[in-house]
């Protein structure tokens, strides 16, 4: 094996955003002449640790941990550290021996929540679909809490979705919430800590023919953008995962070159707020976002 090896451990290689990041990373790796191996940890931190250890065994040149917080991959980091392999995270934060991170999704929520509160005129009810086990989602929930706290006339109902099962959960929570929030009484909004639960909720809204509820997601996956185009979703924040993946791999080369002199750092790529008004222009700039 002459080509340098890049090991990628994904929390869910079937999730759209993860897929785009992997595509970006793979593209950069190809340009660098590296080989990419992807392991799907299927949501299990234990599997992720195992996969990182396996890459350490393989003497990979660098490892990307996707979404698992650095605090949950202790054994993996230890193995990689022993083997002298740099580990970077996407959405997993910077800590322990992590060399770099991006995609820390918390701040992405700010423009979306701001817009939501503005459109509600500062009063009404929100159904928040949360997922606290995930670091990113938890950060976004904190952001939302802080902003909404400034508007005492807004009441928030929070429901935890599961992985897998987020579509179904989103739909069922929406069903129940809608039953006690009939149309025309107040301003209503549904917010997903990422797009998919919100998309599940849209299914429920459409099944009931409710169009009085504004729906917000985050990440800007293709389906969310499609829904914005069609008027079922109000806004999402598009995370340029592809570029994040791409940049991160390019940075990995710098990390390797710098060796012991490298200073851990965050290298964020800003998110883009996409709404009904901006979606067409956005898609012109980023046709890849919906392909």
């Amino acid at each position, binding site marked *: 094996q002459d080509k340098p090896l890049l090991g990628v451990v994904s929390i869910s290689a079937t999730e759209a955003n993860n897929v785009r990041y992997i595509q970006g990373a793979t593209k950069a790796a190809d340009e660098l002449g590296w080989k990419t191996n992807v392991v799907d940890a299927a949501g299990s931190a234990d599997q992720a640790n195992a996969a990182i250890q396996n890459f350490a065994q393989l003497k990979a040149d660098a490892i990307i941990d996707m979404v698992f917080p650095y605090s949950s991959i202790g054994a993996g980091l230890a193995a990689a550290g022993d083997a002298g392999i740099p580990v970077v995270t996407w959405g997993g934060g910077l800590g322990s021996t992590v060399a770099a991170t991006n995609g820390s999704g918390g701040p992405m929520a700010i423009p979306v929540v701001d817009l939501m509160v503005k459109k509600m005129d500062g009063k009404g009810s929100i159904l928040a679909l949360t997922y606290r086990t995930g670091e990113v989602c938890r950060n976004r929930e904190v952001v939302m809490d802080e902003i909404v706290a400034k508007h005492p006339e807004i009441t928030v109902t929070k429901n935890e979705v599961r992985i897998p099962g987020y579509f179904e959960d989103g739909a069922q929570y929406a069903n129940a919430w809608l*039953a006690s929030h009939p149309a025309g009484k107040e301003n209503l909004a549904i917010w997903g800590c990422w797009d998919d639960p919100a998309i599940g909720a849209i299914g429920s809204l459409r099944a009931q023919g409710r169009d009085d509820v504004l729906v917000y997601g985050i990440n800007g996956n293709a389906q969310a953008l499609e829904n914005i185009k069609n008027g079922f979703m109000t806004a999402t924040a598009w995370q340029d995962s592809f570029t994040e993946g791409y940049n991160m791999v390019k940075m990995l080369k710098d990390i390797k070159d710098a060796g012991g002199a490298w200073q851990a750092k965050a290298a964020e790529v800003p998110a883009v707020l996409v709404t009904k008004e901006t979606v067409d222009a956005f898609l012109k700039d980023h046709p890849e976002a919906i392909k």
Partner: protein
Amino acid sequence: MSDVAISARRLSPGTKAALGIFARYGTIIGLLAMIVTFSILSPAAFPTVGNFTNVLNQASLAMIIAGGLTLAVVVGELDLSIGFAASLHGILITGFVVHDKLPIPLGVVIVIALGAVIGLVNGFIVTKIKVNSVIATLGVGTILTGLAFAYSAGVPIVAGVPEAFLQLSLGRWLFGIPNNIIVMILVLGGLWVLVERTPLGQEIQAVGGNAVAARLAGVNVDRIKILGFVISGMCAALTGILLASRLGSGTASAADSYLLTAFAAVFLGSATLRDGEFHVLGTLVGALIIAFGFNGLNIFGAPTFSQYVLQGAILIIAVGMASLGRSLAER
């Protein structure tokens, strides 16, 4: 010899009869009690035609896949591939309709046929190679996940999903009843007739009740087991199609979570009417308990953690009432 009558602990015939009713209808009584309770707790939002329609609409997909699973368990096997299969089918139908521009009915027919083929493969591995059904269907399910990946490269198929496809599950029909509910009633009704009212259904029940006896009596056990898997596979395909239509996309692993829901419904149902036997009507009751439990707890606004606790408790209590009634009545 002591003269204390052992009969001190005996139950009167009247009590036994009452317990017998609990044994048969315990889960149904549980379902009704739950609906009444939630109606009292949330009188404005819970007991409305709209909410009930929504709950049924939402639960239809789980009911269809659970109905199929019922056939697999009735013949005495487990089918763990259904969730993964439904995910794959959702991707396939979207791909067929969006990329290959197949007419929707043709796509539906092809995907359901594929579901039957997957069932056939499961059944073949279980009956001919004699691999335990847990391993066989888990293995096949894992392979299907891989195929879903291969087909979609993990990227959901979203763009260009035609409105007509969405209308499959969003549409309403007679008296404004959502299509999903109508499809669910047709499927479960058909399965019920098949199992309970046809000669083939007798063989299906016999194989599940005692495969050795069925074989000795000349029933073609393998063929019946394969049939169970095929029906399970077809129902999974139908659920995958309707889910893709509901979500407007084909996404890998979108339907994976149906596996546990379907199992819960089927096993809950097995406590209904007949003791510990699986049957279609029971599955229906089980699925309703799960759906109304989830919805009612939510509407009442219980915090997340207590929702889990109460959901778990509902499962146990619904079955526990029936089981306890039965074992006391039979003492």
